């Protein structure tokens, strides 16, 4: 088997994640899909690391994870505070950016 298949898997997962972001309305699920996209890119990075024979790809994947953790913390906090005020986790209910 060619390790390129990992890349195909990564592309597939990324696409599924992106479609999820577009389709799902629950902010939490939407957020999960974002995580899925990040994971997919991590897989690609790890595969590239293997391809090039150095560890820099893994390092980037590592940083991605850290940043994703930070992002999740803040993102979920935002979701919670929105839920507290609006009693809804649907992103369609927050459309105040429309003027």
């Amino acid at each position, binding site marked *: 088997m060619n390790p390129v298949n990992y*890349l195909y898997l990564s592309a597939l997962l990324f696409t599924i994640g992106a479609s999820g972001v577009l389709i*799902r309305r*629950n902010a939490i699920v939407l957020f999960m899909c974002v995580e899925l996209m990040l994971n997919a890119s991590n897989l690609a990075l790890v595969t590239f690391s293997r391809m090039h024979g150095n560890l820099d790809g893994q390092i980037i994947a590592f940083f991605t994870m850290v940043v994703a953790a930070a992002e999740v913390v803040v993102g979920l906090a935002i979701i*919670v505070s929105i839920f507290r005020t609006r009693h809804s986790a649907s992103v369609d209910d927050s459309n105040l950016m429309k003027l």
Partner: protein
Amino acid sequence: MSAATSLNLAAVTGATSTGEAVQFWVLAVIAVGGALGTLLMRKAVHSALCLAATMLALAVCYMAQGAVFLGVVQIVVYTGAIMMLFLFVVMLVGVTSADSLKEQLKGQRFAAALCGLGFGVLMVAGIANAKLDSFAGLGEANAEGNVQGLARLIFTKYVWAFEVTGALLITAAIGAMVLTHREHVKAPKTQRELAAQRVADNIQVPPLPAPGIYARHNAVDIPALLPDGSIAEDSVMATLRERGQIRDVSQEMLARMAELESTTADWLGRPPSERPPVTGPRKALEPVAANHPAPANRPASDHDEEGAE
């Protein structure tokens, strides 16, 4: 870990062993299935579980590719910490709340599907077109161990980025605290004020009745019984009431009482009680939600039986 190490051996060279191929196909199916599950499950909890599965599969993929450390981190941080965080929030927001199926944005689903499809095709085409046949493998890089190799890079070449991510994490932590912190707009009411307020509003001046039936049950989802045998709804917390997760055991209790009385009468040699079995007013409360089994069939919970005889 030993499995991972053995898998890792295949990854040190660029080529893949048959074992890895088998493993890949298994994991790929799990990962894609999990991803689709995340996308398609109506309930957030289920989505989260599916995502966790995908992440676990990916963790194994990392290990198979020689990224042992990342695989472990993936399990610990992602599946362990982040997904738990997700689950907490899901619980906070409401486990049962499900997306409605009706799409409100016109053409959104179609456009999303089209975009997804197009993007997938493009990516696949791009990868297929790229010259990716030579895989160097990580044998050299991981010579002194994957963790050591990563550590060397992180603390030398990427030390600046590493420090910055540290700052980022602290900022995120503070940010989360700030965001979820609720400022008291006015001074919190004292107990005296609350009491005065209750009297003034004339609603439930004394404390609410406690849940459970003393000597028989003390679970929070079992309402207390009123003297007439009907249930006291106020005794169950509002969340459970809202979800319809109240276990009404009044019938069973009354049956037991009746049984007890008749046994006693037998033993004392009295005639059995003429009192008919009470079927108290049920109010509007249906004790059993559609997806809950009838509580009448579940009398023998662990602690419910204590002191029965």
